[in-house]
C-alpha cells in the first residue's frame, strides 16, 4: 500500500502510524461532507450535500490544498464497503410494501427507465470514447 501512496520526502503523514492516518483521512472526508451540507443549506440548492462535498474535494485535490496521501487509505476502506452503507436506505422499501397492486406498475416504470437510460448512455458513450494510445 505505502509505496503506491507515494509519500513526499519528509512528509509528516508518512510518519503517522497507519490507524492514525486512517483517522486523519476519515476526518477530512467527514469535513468535506459537512462542508457540502453547509454550502447546500446556505445557498438553498436542491442537491445532496455529500455530492457537493465530492466536487469540493476533487477541486481541493486539484488545487493541492488537500494531498492524496492524507486520505487514500480511508477512502479505499470506505469505498470497499459502499454497498453496505446503502442497506438502511434500501430496507426503507418495507414502508411501502402494503401499497399492494401498484408495485407491478412502479417496477415496470423503473425497469423501463433504467434499461432505456443506461442503454442510451452506454451505447452513446462507447461510440464517443476516444481510442487510447498504448496501455492504460
Amino acid at each position: 500500500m505505502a509505496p503506491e501512496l507515494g509519500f513526499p520526502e519528509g512528509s509528516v503523514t508518512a510518519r503517522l502510524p497507519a490507524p492514525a492516518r486512517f483517522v486523519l483521512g476519515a476526518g477530512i472526508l467527514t469535513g468535506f461532507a459537512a462542508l457540502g451540507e453547509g454550502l447546500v443549506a446556505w445557498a438553498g440548492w436542491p442537491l445532496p450535500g455529500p455530492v457537493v462535498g465530492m466536487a469540493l474535494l476533487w477541486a481541493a485535490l486539484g488545487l493541492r490544498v488537500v494531498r492524496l496521501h492524507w486520505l487514500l487509505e480511508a477512502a479505499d476502506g470506505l469505498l470497499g464497503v459502499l454497498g453496505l452503507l446503502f442497506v438502511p436506505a434500501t430496507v426503507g422499501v418495507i414502508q411501502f410494501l402494503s401499497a399492494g397492486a401498484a408495485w407491478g406498475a412502479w417496477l415496470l416504470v423503473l425497469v423501463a427507465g433504467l434499461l432505456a437510460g443506461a442503454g442510451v448512455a452506454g451505447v452513446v458513450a462507447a461510440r464517443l470514447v476516444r481510442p487510447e494510445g498504448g496501455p492504460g
Partner: protein
Amino acid sequence: MTWTALTLVAFVLGVLLQARVRSPLLNPTLVATLAVVAALLLTRVPYETYARDVRPLTFLLGPAVVALAVPMYRLRALLARQWRALLVGGLGGTLCAVAVDHALPRVLGVGVDAARALGTAPATSPVALQLAQFTQAPPALAATLAVLSGLLGALLLPGWLSLLGVRHPLARGVAMGSVSHGVGTARAREEGELAGAASSLGMGLAALAVTLVVALLSAGR
C-alpha cells in the same frame, strides 16, 4: 445496536454467497436488504426503530460519497481526455430515463403520487427527497423509489450492457451511474476503478440534470 449487527452480518453473508455462487442476483446489498426486511416483518419492528438503530451506518454514507472524488482524481487525466463521451453519454442517458419515468406512468395510469415520485428516480435519493417539495411527491416514497431504482440497476444493468455490446469500462460505468447512482456505483466499482470513477461522475451529472429538469418543469407550471 442489534439491528446494526444484523445488517453487518447479513452483508458479509451476501459477500460470501456472491463469492461462492457467481450470480449477479446475489448482490450483497440485495441479500442484506432481504434478510433485514424478513427479520423486521417477522419481529413486527417498525422501520423507524430500525432506521434509528442503524444511524451510524447511514452517517458513514456522507464521507463515503465524498471519497468517490479520490478514484476520480487519480484518473483525472483519462477522464479529462474522455469528457465528451462521459458528458454526452451521461446526460443523454439520465434525460432519457427521466423522459420514460414521466411518460410511462401516464400510459399505465399510475396514481398521481407515485407518478410524481417516479420522475426523480434516476437521481440519488437525497436529491429525490429534496426535489419532492417541488414535484409535490410524497418525500419518503420519492426517496424509496430512487433507492430501489439503484438496486434494480445494480442487478440488471451489467447484463443488459453486455447484451448491448457495451464493453468499454468508461461507457459501462457512466451508464450505471447516470441512472442507478450510489448503489449502481458500488456495483460498477466491482468491475474496476475506471468503471467506478466513470459511474461516480455519471451520478453527479444525473443529480444536476434531474434537478435542472424539475426546476424547468415547475417553472413552467
